[in-house]
């Protein structure tokens, strides 16, 4: 994997696309041959959702260089709004695929708007203070969705906070029921849609990174003061990356939620944000292919460790610590460095 860093950016992006498409074709073939375990089959959509989460967070952490601890909040917004859209449009759009697409767009849109609103205060801060504020927003979003009631009847949407004061008509349906979340969801998410979403997100990210805006964003990451002094509008470009990242997380949330029959706000808590951050750091900052592999591998790992039964999460923790120690060990690092041909690559730190 390290060798990939040597190649040009465009070659690396094509390799990433190629990897995703190849993985899709192989898994489809395995699935068609009937050789896939039902366990893995059930995990394909969540893996796609986590991959999108990881590459979108990598845009914030790896490319923009700001630590975000509340990425699950955007996933939550996308999940709730996307599912609400899917339920509301049940009669208007009969085709599940189109309804899924509409749900993803709505989820991304709302998460993007939320990203913009949160970005206004957040992006004024730096470093760990920025991180804690994103954590705070993630928790606030969770608390609000836990107490949010949204119903739909012939008069349109009714919403209320804390208590169910929606007073729906008899034909109405309470969509978001506070701490109970959304129930009776039609599972319209599919693996194919997930892969398409991953590819769309990759196209957006690679095009952004290789554009004028992307170079400005990376200039801000590398040295904010220098970037400012050559006339780069800091807030504008930070906001661009942050909102893009939030919108992708929203789409991922909608995809994730539409794979289950119920969704509750507590699913998207601090631990989920941290989980996605682990994917990003293990995969390598700024390295999209790394994020994809890490997200897929670490989502499967706890399931693959089922034979260890009770010990699996303990093993997971130990593996995580050991990987971090080994990756950052100077002796091992220089050992692998010898296998790199010619110039040094690397988007890490």
């Amino acid at each position: 994997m390290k060798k990939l860093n040597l190649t040009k950016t465009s070659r690396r992006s094509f390799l990433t696309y190629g990897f995703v498409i190849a993985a899709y074709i192989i898994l489809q073939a395995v699935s068609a041959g009937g050789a896939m375990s039902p366990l893995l089959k059930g995990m394909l959509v969540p893996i796609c959702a986590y991959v999108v989460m990881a590459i979108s967070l990598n845009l914030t952490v790896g490319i923009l260089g700001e630590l975000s601890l509340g990425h699950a909040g955007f996933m939550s917004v996308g999940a709730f709004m996307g599912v609400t859209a899917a339920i509301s449009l049940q009669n208007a759009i009969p085709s599940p695929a189109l309804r899924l697409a509409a749900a993803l767009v709505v989820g991304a849109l709302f998460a993007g708007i939320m990203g913009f609103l949160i970005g206004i205060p957040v992006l004024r801060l730096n470093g760990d203070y920025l991180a804690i504020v994103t954590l705070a927003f993630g928790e606030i979003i969770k608390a609000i969705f836990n107490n949010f009631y949204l119903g739909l009847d012939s008069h349109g949407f009714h919403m209320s906070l804390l208590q169910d004061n929606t007073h729906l008509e008899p034909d109405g349906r309470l969509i978001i029921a506070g701490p109970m979340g959304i129930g009776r969801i039609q599972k319209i998410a599919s693996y194919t849609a997930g892969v398409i979403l991953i590819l769309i997100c990759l196209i957006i990210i690679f095009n952004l990174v290789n554009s004028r805006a992307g170079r400005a964003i990376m200039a801000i990451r590398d040295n904010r003061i220098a970037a400012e002094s050559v006339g780069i509008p800091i807030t504008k470009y930070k906001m661009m990356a942050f909102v893009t990242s939030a919108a992708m997380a929203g789409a991922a949330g909608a995809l994730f939620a539409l794979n289950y029959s119920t969704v509750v706000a507590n699913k998207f808590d601090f631990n989920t944000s941290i989980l996605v951050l682990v994917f990003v750091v293990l995969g390598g900052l700024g390295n999209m292919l790394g994020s994809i592999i890490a997200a897929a591998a670490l989502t499967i790992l706890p399931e693959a460790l089922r034979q260890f039964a009770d010990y699996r999460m303990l093993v997971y923790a130990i593996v995580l610590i050991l990987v971090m120690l080994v990756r950052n060990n100077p002796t091992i690092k220089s050992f692998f460095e010898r296998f790199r041909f010619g110039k040094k690559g690397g988007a890490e730190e």
Partner: protein
Amino acid sequence: MSFLNSLISGISLGSIYAIIALGYTMVYGIAKMLNFAHGDVIMVGAYICFFATSRFGLPPLLGVLLAVIVCTVLGMTIEKLAYAPLRSAPSLAVLITAIGVSYFLQNAALLLWTPNPKVFPNFFARTVLTPEGAVFEKTGVELFGGALRISYVTLVTILVNVVIMIALTAFTGNTKMGKAMRACSEDKDAARLMGISVNTTISVTFAIGSGLAAIAGVLFMSAYPNLVPTTGSMPGIKAFTAAVFGGIGSIPGAFLGGLLLGVIEIFAKTYISTQLSDAIVFAVLIIVLLVKPTGLLGRQIREKV
């Protein structure tokens, strides 16, 4: 009177946050890392004290002492095994390792002590005989004819917090090790040149932070006696917030931030909404950071080109 009641329970909760926040803020000030496993050290301390007193029948004071010792050793071990090898690594790598340690502690606790909640004993309850001859547990004092109720836990918590603050201020201000800590947080390389052992200093910082976490764990459990392996994570996040609130790296800041956070949380619960109290606490944090981006007592960092 309800206002005074809320204020006192807020200060009590805030005192616990402050003690935990000290651990975060000292480690951050010196090792420049966010020790996400700190909340789980609280949980370990609470479990040790629980088993020492309930299963092995040790007196409460010995139980607390044992918890402090175990947590101190645990903190130093974690630092040596997981964090020390990463001293020159990027800060995100250390952060992820800390998260790994946090997972490890939670899942080890899950295996060792099962997910069944344990009811933490109330050390501060006294059995009292009423004049009518009935026996009941007296858990606090009542003032103004019962209008104001202060539990012993609350009193002890506030007292312990004040003692810890005074002791810690004296320690960092006057002792050799305390001065070494301040020097390390100022400039690690310069401190090393002056003959200060940075590794030892960081070790001692972790030891103190983890020992305090054990005390905080016992106090927290005495007030909210439901002990499960994930007990530590929420107070951990809140205390981390408190540390940032007061200005991370500053000891008086942790004290102030913890107290304010506790009071805001209890007031939000009493007067606004129980379910939204966490959201309100975090909203206040965001507002404070917007007005004062380095926390209440944080030092302004000048940016150099």
